[in-house]
């Protein structure tokens, strides 16, 4: 029999016992739906995790410091500079880093402890510069208000805990003005005596919290100072108190972590460009002054953003070659894929169980159909149908139930996934958290689920089909 005739007959047969076949097909659909829902959750969570991780900037960033800042990383390798001093992380270095292949952005970590005034009340806080790319990190998702309007805007975003210190109704802060008071660093000519005006109360206050990111930093600075003892000190700097009005444009829940440079206790965020222009006194200024380098401002650290996690290794090697210490996280996305592969297999096994159970339904339906259609099988054989034709007919029927069930199951599974996401987002919304999409049905999952359903159905059809084919036509025709 030709495929088209076979299919027509099979569809006719399926339509005939509509209720029974629909229920069987529904059984397959439920099986496939459970499989698809399970796997879509696995895939969705994996996508969510990798997206979050890549957006977090943790895996496409290299954290660059002068050698010696990290005991573990710096000490293990010989210093490249002939003088024994590590290469300074200054503007030249920043330019060089930006020119490395694969580097998309280089920005310093600008943060300083200072005082802000809101409606005349002073608050001691930590100000951090945020690059415009920080928006893409996802850290500002779901914030109250808006992100900075431009890189040079005199605007501020408050961390919610700090905002709550000002007023419990944090949303009322958006649009208000904030007065930033800070100490500007002004370089003194090299020959002038380093007056170390850093002894002013402001700068003392500056140093204390800034040292916190690693007790090491201050320790290193102190050690460096001791090493340099006796050598002629270069220029110095003076501290000039300044103030600047900023408009509060938003309040953010989470702590932005744009690369390692961003990890830490920022309470007031301002555009990085604005922060740099302030030339506010930072922790490393003191060390630089002691080391006699204050003529040329240097950076405590620079964050190098790379075009994708895979390029981190090469860029990191190139930066080390330049004589800096680097730090980056390994490409964790690889491990995450592995973890999720195991997770998906487990989910897939649980999901498949329902499909296996529904395949028993197919076997049952088709065996019942043989009893039902005994006479018809006999007639077909008497009219010239070969055993193979009968077998194929049952196969096609099993396959058709599998295909329809698979199709329906993918739709059900997708709907279950949507419902899951919806329910989760209702919950997240109640917790005032931004919504997320936890399930995903990519085309390969849909196609694979349908193919799997057809395969399982065909296997389920093996026994009924061969039994139908072996039916003795003489007995079958006698059957009433």
């Amino acid at each position: 029999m030709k495929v088209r005739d076979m299919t027509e007959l099979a569809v006719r047969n399926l339509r005939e016992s509509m209720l029974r076949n629909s229920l069987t097909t529904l059984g397959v659909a439920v099986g496939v739906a459970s499989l698809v829902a399970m796997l879509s959750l696995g895939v969705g969570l994996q996508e969510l995790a990798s997206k979050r991780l890549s957006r977090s900037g943790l895996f496409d960033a290299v954290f660059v410091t002068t050698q010696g800042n990290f005991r573990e990383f710096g000490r293990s390798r010989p210093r490249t500079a002939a003088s024994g001093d590590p290469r300074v992380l200054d503007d030249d270095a920043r330019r060089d880093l930006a020119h490395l292949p694969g580097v998309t952005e280089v920005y310093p970590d600008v943060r300083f402890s200072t005082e802000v005034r809101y409606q005349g009340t002073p608050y001691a806080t930590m100000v951090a510069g945020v690059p415009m790319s920080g928006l893409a990190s996802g850290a500002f998702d779901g914030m109250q208000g808006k992100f900075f309007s431009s890189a040079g805007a005199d605007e501020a975003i408050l961390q919610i805990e700090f905002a709550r210190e000002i007023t419990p109704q944090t949303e009322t802060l958006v649009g208000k003005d904030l007065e930033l008071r800070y100490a500007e660093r002004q370089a003194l000519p090299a020959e002038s005596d380093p007056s170390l005006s850093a002894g002013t109360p402001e700068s003392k206050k500056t140093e204390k919290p800034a040292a916190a990111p690693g007790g090491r930093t201050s320790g290193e600075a102190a050690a460096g100072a001791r090493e340099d003892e006796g050598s002629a000190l270069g220029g110095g700097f003076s501290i000039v108190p300044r103030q600047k009005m900023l408009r509060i444009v938003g309040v953010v829940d989470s702590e932005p972590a744009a690369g390692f440079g961003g990890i830490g206790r920022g309470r007031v965020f301002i555009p990085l460009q604005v922060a740099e222009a302030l030339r506010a006194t930072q922790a490393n200024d003191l060390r630089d002054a002691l080391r006699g380098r204050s003529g040329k401002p240097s950076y405590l650290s620079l964050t190098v953003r790379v075009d994708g996690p895979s390029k981190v290794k090469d860029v990191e090697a190139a930066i080390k070659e330049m004589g800096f210490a680097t730090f980056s996280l390994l490409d964790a996305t690889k491990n995450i894929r592995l973890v999720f592969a195991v997770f998906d297999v487990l989910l897939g096994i649980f999901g498949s169980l329902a499909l296996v159970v529904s395949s028993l339904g197919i076997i049952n339906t088709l065996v019942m159909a043989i009893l039902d259609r005994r006479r018809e099988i006999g007639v077909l054989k008497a009219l010239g149908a070969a055993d193979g034709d009968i077998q194929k007919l049952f196969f096609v029927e099993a396959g058709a139930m599998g295909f329809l069930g698979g199709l329906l199951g993918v739709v059900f599974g997708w709907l279950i996934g949507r419902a899951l996401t919806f329910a989760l987002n209702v919950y997240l919304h109640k917790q005032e958290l931004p919504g997320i999409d936890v399930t995903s049905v990519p085309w390969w999952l849909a196609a694979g689920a349908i193919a799997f359903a057809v395969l399982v159905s065909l296997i389920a059809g093996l026994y009924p089909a061969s039994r139908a084919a072996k039916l003795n036509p003489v007995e079958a025709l006698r059957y009433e």
Partner: protein
Amino acid sequence: MGTTQVRAVDEVTLSANAGEILAILGASGSGKSTLLNLMAGLDRPTSGAIFAQGKNLATMNSQELARHRSSTVGMVFQSFQLLPRMTLEENVELPLRLAEVERAERNQRVREALDRVHLTARLTHRPTEMSGGEQQRAALARALVNRPMILLADEPTGNLDSVTGEEIMHLLKEINETLGMTIIIVTHERPMAERFAHRLALMGDGKLMSDGQTR
């Protein structure tokens, strides 16, 4: 059942000549239907040989037997055996589907077969909506549609009243005369067989009792 062998057909030597109507007579259980099923290739003999157009059915594989049923013989049954879910037209078309006849040709072949049995109305009706006579004529058309050489009829009038049965027998005679088709009829109605068949074979207990011309 068990290991007891029942010899339904035993030591029967019978041949039908091309173009004749052969009636196989016998009481129920005499083995006449089994003999017909063997000729149709629906059953296999445990020993012996059955030749149709020079080929031995006993040595054919199931595929070859299927081809024999499809193209060499056409079958008509006592209980019509039309598929209840198909229309009259679809029932008649079924052997064409199984024989993989081109779709374009099928319609014409179906009309031709239905013309032969004088059934041209109610083509889209289902078997349950038709009378017994109409159903048997449809079954006859289905047996003819693949243009077989031999028509095998198992009690074709058994489920019909005498008038309708007579009509069917006239139709068989007509087909035999116009197409020159060999027709083998299994029946227990001796008077009817004597009137329409060229030759009578009498079966009893699986054995051939007599074989001879009717007139």
